[in-house]
């Protein structure tokens, strides 16, 4: 199971970076005469209602979906880690305050939180990514805090303080590196979760604007042709599921 997960993610990243290597078709303009063709050697994933090559749209959509996921994870990772680090290091009142705030974030379902942020910021690729990222702050903060509290009590941290280390130096040299392992595994997991959440927001119409190829939007566009053209929803769907599964598998290995 190890190799397929890595290969899937590597392929998706390559699609995002150099889509031209994988498809010669234009993702934005199609040949109207070739509309709604089933998958074939010429069009691997078939074509959509205006004759665009679906495989090309999925490949070019990787950049949208993956960069969105990267932004979302970055927002969650940076904010969450900083909050968790502060809470775990300071303890006392600040710790209680930050953690109760995280309880509040956790009490609101992720999608509702994302939708609230979208009402504030407006729809769009970047805003949707930030909205999804805000939803993952609490998970990162809780984990980081737990790790910091665990590491803080260990002998080598005591020793570092004892030998004259300042708080920032000990944090940077000892606490942070030793707390980071599980946090990175969580980041891998959250990448998959973010791809999932972003495709949902894209499907609901709060992500990229058509005709931009975005995975959730592609599936939404295929909905009108369910009865006749199964490939329009199924094949982009398979790609999303494969990437999310691979990210989950990767996270398990890193743990």
């Amino acid at each position, binding site marked *: 199971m190890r190799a397929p997960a890595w290969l899937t993610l590597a392929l998706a990243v390559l699609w995002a970076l150099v889509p031209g290597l994988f498809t010669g078709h234009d993702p934005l303009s199609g040949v109207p005469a070739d509309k709604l063709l089933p998958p074939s050697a010429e069009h691997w994933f078939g074509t959509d209602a205006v004759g665009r090559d679906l495989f090309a749209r999925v490949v070019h959509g990787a950049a949208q979906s993956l960069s969105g996921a990267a932004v979302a994870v970055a927002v969650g990772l940076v904010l969450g880690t900083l909050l968790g680090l502060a809470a775990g290091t300071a303890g006392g009142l600040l710790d209680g305050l930050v953690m109760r705030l995280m309880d509040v974030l956790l009490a609101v379902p992720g999608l509702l939180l994302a939708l609230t942020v979208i009402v504030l910021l407006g729809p769009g690729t970047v805003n949707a990514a930030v909205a999804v990222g805000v939803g993952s702050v609490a998970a990162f903060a809780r984990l980081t805090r737990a790790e910091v509290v665990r590491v803080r009590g260990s002998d080598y941290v005591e020793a570092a303080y004892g030998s004259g280390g300042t708080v920032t130096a000990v944090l940077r040299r000892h606490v942070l590196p030793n707390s980071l392992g599980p946090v990175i595994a969580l980041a891998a997991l959250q990448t998959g979760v973010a791809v999932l959440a972003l495709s949902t927001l894209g499907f*609901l119409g709060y992500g990229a604007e058509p005709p931009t190829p975005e995975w959730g939007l592609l599936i939404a566009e295929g909905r009108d042709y369910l009865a006749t053209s199964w490939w329009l929803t199924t094949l982009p769907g398979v790609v999303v599921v494969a990437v999310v599964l691979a990210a989950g598998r990767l996270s398990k290995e890193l743990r």
Partner: protein
Amino acid sequence: MTAHLLRRTGQALLVLWAAFTAAYLLLQAMPGDAVLIKFQNPELGLSPERIAEIRSYYDGGGYLHTLLGFLQGDFGYSVETGTPVLDRLAEGLPATAELAGAAFALAVPLAVLIAFASCHSTRLRGLLLAVPSLMVSVPVFLLGILLVQLFSFRLGLVPVIGGSRAQQLVLPVLTLAVPVSAPIAQVLARALDHALAQPYVPVVAAKGASRSRILWRHAARNALPPALTVAGLTFGELVAGSVVTETVFGRNGVGRLTEQAVDSQDTPVLLAVVVLAAAVFVLVNLLVDVLFPILDPRLA
């Protein structure tokens, strides 16, 4: 025990109050005039009396006013229709409760089945344990679409339009049950594994207990508390899933209302939905906490 209960209840109320405050600051903290201008839009077709009524509500304005309103079940007025938010919620709630309730009722036995089957059969174990991972990796909207494609268009088993109430419910319930079931199955399987590794298992086996008796009588009881915790936490998934499922299947419920509220920037509706979702989430998890010592006397 009572002290613990009181402290947990206090904590729950505090979280709820903070959730309300945060949501209010984000969504409602616009000047009263901006809200009122929206209501004066002639397209809404509100009578002057209704506008005066809404004006008197928002003129009183401010945080405390809204908080007191929420405590009394008065959630303000929908910007989209000019009707009280409470009325709109009440309209959608039965459909959503039906969907979410049925989905949860299906998700739990499904999770139990997967978890116990994975402990029974060593041959299928790997495969069975991969099922929940797959279930959480499929976007809910995609699952709904694929189910419609398969059962309505390919097999013709469920009519797309019309059909009986039960027929209309079956695919949405199936769609929503899958993401709710998966985390419960994962945790239950892990907890069962842990329980089966305990020293009392060889003891009861030596006394002649069969594999299924060990599993159902002994391991299950010890695996229940963690599964219950996760079941409480999946409530968020149930709410988020309802938004998506109702949108995919065109069901008029609170989820659909939420989606429309985001589309039309109907912040009073969204505020009420967020606070309501947080309230139920906090309540459900408080209940789980209270149930814990009853299930496991060691925790009492």
